[in-house]
């Protein structure tokens, strides 16, 4: 079933990458997708389910000022998140589990996990990887989980 949490969940690593306190953002975001304040600023996220797409819009405010680069907009095909490819926390969890087990050496735009997923995890500091993108497409190689990633995975596992 598609709900706001599934629509908004891709924003979470992005928020952390922009400096949100991880535990505060996690607790608030899981309870009420919407506008909330965390140490360091105010983070807003809203999900919209229209006829054909599920979209999420997020904006970061620091001291009441909207950050020009603090905007995220994503749209996905409407349908079951897992069946229709909408990233959920489970996708991040699966990716981190696979990386921790050393099952993922490289990713590209069509692999599972995808380049986009790893890029978001890398931006949040949960993994480190070498960007091997070239003319024929984007890719990462030598992907390794970080201490922060292991702690996040532990947190996801205990909250599941």
């Amino acid at each position, binding site marked *: 079933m598609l709900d706001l949490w599934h629509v908004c969940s891709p924003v979470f690593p992005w928020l952390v990458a922009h400096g949100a306190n991880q535990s505060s953002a996690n607790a608030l975001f899981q309870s009420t997708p919407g506008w909330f304040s965390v140490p360091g600023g105010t983070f807003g996220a809203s999900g919209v389910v229209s006829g054909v797409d599920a979209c999420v819009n997020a904006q970061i405010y620091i001291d009441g000022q909207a950050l020009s680069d603090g905007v995220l907009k994503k749209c996905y095909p409407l349908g079951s998140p897992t069946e229709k490819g909408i990233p959920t926390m489970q996708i991040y969890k699966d990716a981190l589990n696979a990386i921790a087990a050393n099952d993922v050496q490289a990713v590209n735009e069509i692999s599972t996990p995808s380049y986009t997923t790893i890029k978001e995890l890398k931006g949040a500091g949960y993994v480190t990887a*070498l*960007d091997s993108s070239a003319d024929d497409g984007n890719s990462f190689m030598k992907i390794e989980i970080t201490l922060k990633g292991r702690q996040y995975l532990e947190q996801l596992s205990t909250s599941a």
Partner: protein
Amino acid sequence: MPAKPEAAVLVADLLTLLWENQLATAAALDELTLWARSQGATVVYDNVIGALETLDRNASAIADGITALRR
């Protein structure tokens, strides 16, 4: 005189090896600190976690540097 492209590749290769060493060391330390915490050595755990956070931070910067050298 501009550096030879081969030199940049060599530096990137060497940095990659050092980066992998750093990640392996961090992973091993992490395992040991989890064991130390389970034995009640929370001060040791906190101290090592601080060092691991530094390794994490620098690993990301080194990875970005390696990527830049390879382009």
